[in-house]
């Protein structure tokens, strides 16, 4: 039973102990507010009220790609000159905006007050506001707060902060259960749940729940598995509530999904026969689907700018299952406790970098001229213009990419820019540089 998750063909020397280049220069990464773009779609009765500036509102709008929904379940309470003058005032103003909002949107059951750089700098105490508003609107609406500020959080860390804020208010339950942690597209979440139920794991719950009234509790009997590698604070909060984390590589690709499921299966004493019976068919499908895209990726080099925090697990998937060669794997921060199992599986060689000094990193990327460079939207076109093929990282958090049925799609996301390049080679400027 309790078979360790590592495969027999793990590299002799992985990257867990490899030296890390730590950079502290200019970063070119979104702040944690960005997570609202997917979190508000995931939690259908939640509203995200950012207390911030026009910049914050503009970031959300721009990151959302100006997708205008009838009325999205997020908004920004923009601080004005008069709010900055006196704090008591700001709390009254916030109460008034919340009252208006909840009157207009009776469907809202969870309200997140989301801190930003300006609200942090003026020390506007949103936890006090959340407590006060919870008293006022309980039990219909639960009011929570977290910070998505750029001075404290990077891109996907916003989701971590959001999920972490929900943990302390979860009811206590000693029940033996598996908790899946991470906001996944519904279709992917459903696939994961059906795999787990086929393995015979009875009680499986998900944080964040789609709706506020989902029965979610935590306690000594809870074991949890992260589905995203950026949820370190949430994991720590769950551990403080007595839950125990299952350590595994992240469920990207056939191998990652299998190892992740195997670790869960080991925890719940699932027999090897049953595991094989449940996973054999989807594993074969995933391998087949990945193989199609891997034809394009095989032998190609890849360079990761730090962005979504998925870089390490993806590098593991691309090097091991798609035959790519990683040159640099940059991540905004490296939480070895969480991505250690993935690092173990990446053969030593690539440069691991943490944090960023964007101009220096661009110099390295230009020198490396990888076949594919993974970066943010601000860098993609300029690098393309320099003749580098790029893959925008943000797509990786907006697209279903986890578990078996998406393994092929995940590989295809990386193959597409290369295939496109090949198709358009008649258009390539003679020098390899952009025409301008």
């Amino acid at each position: 039973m309790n078979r360790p998750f590592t495969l027999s063909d793990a590299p002799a020397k992985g990257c867990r102990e490899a030296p890390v280049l730590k950079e502290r220069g200019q970063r070119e990464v979104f702040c944690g507010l960005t997570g609202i773009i997917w979190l508000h779609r995931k939690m259908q009765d939640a509203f995200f009220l950012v207390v911030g500036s026009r910049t914050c509102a503009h970031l959300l709008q721009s990151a959302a790609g100006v997708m205008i929904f009838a009325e999205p379940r997020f908004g920004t309470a923009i601080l004005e000159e008069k709010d900055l003058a006196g704090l008591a005032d700001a709390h009254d103003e916030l109460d008034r905006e919340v009252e208006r909002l909840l009157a207009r949107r009776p469907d809202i059951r969870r309200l997140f007050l989301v801190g930003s750089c300006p609200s942090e700098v003026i020390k506007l105490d949103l936890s006090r506001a959340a407590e006060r508003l919870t008293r006022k609107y309980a039990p219909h609406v639960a009011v929570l707060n977290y910070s998505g500020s750029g001075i404290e959080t990077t891109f996907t860390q916003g989701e971590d902060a959001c999920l972490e804020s929900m943990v302390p208010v979860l009811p206590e339950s000693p029940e033996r259960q598996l908790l899946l942690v991470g906001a996944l597209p519904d279709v992917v979440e459903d696939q994961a749940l059906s795999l787990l139920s086929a393995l015979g794991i009875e009680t499986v719950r998900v944080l964040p729940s789609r709706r506020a009234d989902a029965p979610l509790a935590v306690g000594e009997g809870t074991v949890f598995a992260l589905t995203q590698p950026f949820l370190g604070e949430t994991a720590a909060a769950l551990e403080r509530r007595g839950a125990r984390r299952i350590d595994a590589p992240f469920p990207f690709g056939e191998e990652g999904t299998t190892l992740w499921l195997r670790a869960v299966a080991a925890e719940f004493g699932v027999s090897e026969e049953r595991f094989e019976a449940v996973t054999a068919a989807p594993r074969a499908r995933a391998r087949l689907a990945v193989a199609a895209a891997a034809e394009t990726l095989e032998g190609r080099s890849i360079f990761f700018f730090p962005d979504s925090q998925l870089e390490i697990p993806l590098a593991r998937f691309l090097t091991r299952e798609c035959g790519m060669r990683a040159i640099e794997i940059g991540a905004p921060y490296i939480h070895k406790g969480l991505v250690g199992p993935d690092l173990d599986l990446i053969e030593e060689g690539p440069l691991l970098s943490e944090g960023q000094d964007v101009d220096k990193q661009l110099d390295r990327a230009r020198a490396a001229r990888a076949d594919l460079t993974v970066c943010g939207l601000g860098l993609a076109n300029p690098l393309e213009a320099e003749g580098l093929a790029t893959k925008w990282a943000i797509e990786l958090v907006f697209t279903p990419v986890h578990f078996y049925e998406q393994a092929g799609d995940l590989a295809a996301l990386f193959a597409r820019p290369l295939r496109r390049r090949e198709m358009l080679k008649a258009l390539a400027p003679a020098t390899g540089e952009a025409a301008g």
Partner: protein
Amino acid sequence: MKLTVWTYEGPPHVGAMRVATGMKGLHYVLHAPQGDTYADLLFTMIERRDHRPPVTYTTFQARDLGADTADLFKDACRDAWERFRPEAIIVGASCTAELIQDDPGGMAAALDLPIPVIPLDLPSYQRKENFGADETFLQIVRHLAKPMARTERISCNIIGPTGLGFRHRDDVEELTGLLFELGVAVNVVAPLGASPSDVARLGAAHFNVLLYPETGEGACRWMQRELGLPFTKTVPIGVSATRDFIREVNGLTEMDASPDEGRLRLPWYSRSVDSTYLTGKRVFIFGDGTHAAAAARIASEEMGFAVVGLGCYNREFARPIRALAKSMGLEALVTDDYLEVEAAIQEAQPELILGTQMERHIGKRLGIPCAVISAPVHVQDFPARRSPQVGFEGANVIFDTWVHPLVMGLEEHLLHMFRDDFEFRDEAGPSHHGGHAPRAMDAAPEPEPALAAAVNDNVTWLADAEKELRKIPFFVRGKARRNTEKFAVERGVSAISVETLYEAKAHYAR
């Protein structure tokens, strides 16, 4: 505190970025946290720029606060100079840095860099993007432009175009051609495409053409005062405005040039009988002040539309827009709250919206066609082909753009005649849009309930009348419903029958 969902303008430092990114040889050192780097993607993705905006963000973090944010700024400034070797640097703070009061201007000055360092003071909690662009360019001009001998040949500067502007690239090209025909050479175009050394020689021109008052008026006023350069007051968008502009330039140059109107097609296209169906089409206009005002004049005088709503989102232009609206018998809508704009559009029930990308989405939701006339911009506002708004070609482009979303004349009649034809469903929208017709009617979450539940609580629709109402093509149905209900209420009729519907139709016939 004000709850905002979508904004028409970004913060003022984004305006400064539009100036810096439009220019060459200028670098912007912005004291800001990492998340503010999102603004790069506006330029690299929406405008498809092939280089990074020339902006160094200090990306200070919480742990730097109080301790060494000032050092961070100084290092960033020095590094930017060493790496990029710009001709000049502008320095400023984003909303967060404004609160920590590090004084970027003072710190940058203390570095004694061998190039001009221009401090920006952009109040993030009071002003917005257009102000930021206008103020930034003003400061650059103040620091760099000097009085100097005028060019021998009569010349002007084109002032106002920036990065991320609505059709700025094509407008500059069109306008340069027009000025050439007027015998005027272009000395400098700025900010777009200008370097700091180009800015230094602005004073060599004989006058300025203020192309976009939103982003260039401050600099033009300063140059009038300090360099003695008069500037033009007409923005040449539309046929009449272009002709007025030509007169204005002739006045300044003391010449009598009359450019060839041979390629101007709007007047004939508009007078051609095919366009009769455009008569009195009710249009709602919203955008930045300059483009909204231009559109109002074109709509009423050159297209024969009825303007039923007019407004702008930039308060700086409230006064002229209010005056213009009043002259058209309307009350201007000056707001940056898109929900208010949506409510006003719903109320006015226009047949066409001339607006921004925001209104395009509002139009989608309400099932009303929309043509985009103004920033804020979207990737679609940077077409591959030339597509100016100014001058005679601009007028041609505008004619096409505004007519395109409409159901065409004969088609409109056919829809009336064969409204029950299953293949000719009016919800399909204009036939020339193929499968991409506005799908509002079936895509909207609750398409028809609005019909059954009358907008007005005091009246109900009888089943027959409701059926009849459904036969009216979708693009006028909203107006018919509203008019009928208003008519019924005024006459104290509580149940609307088919007769009421047609009585109302006769009453409101135009």
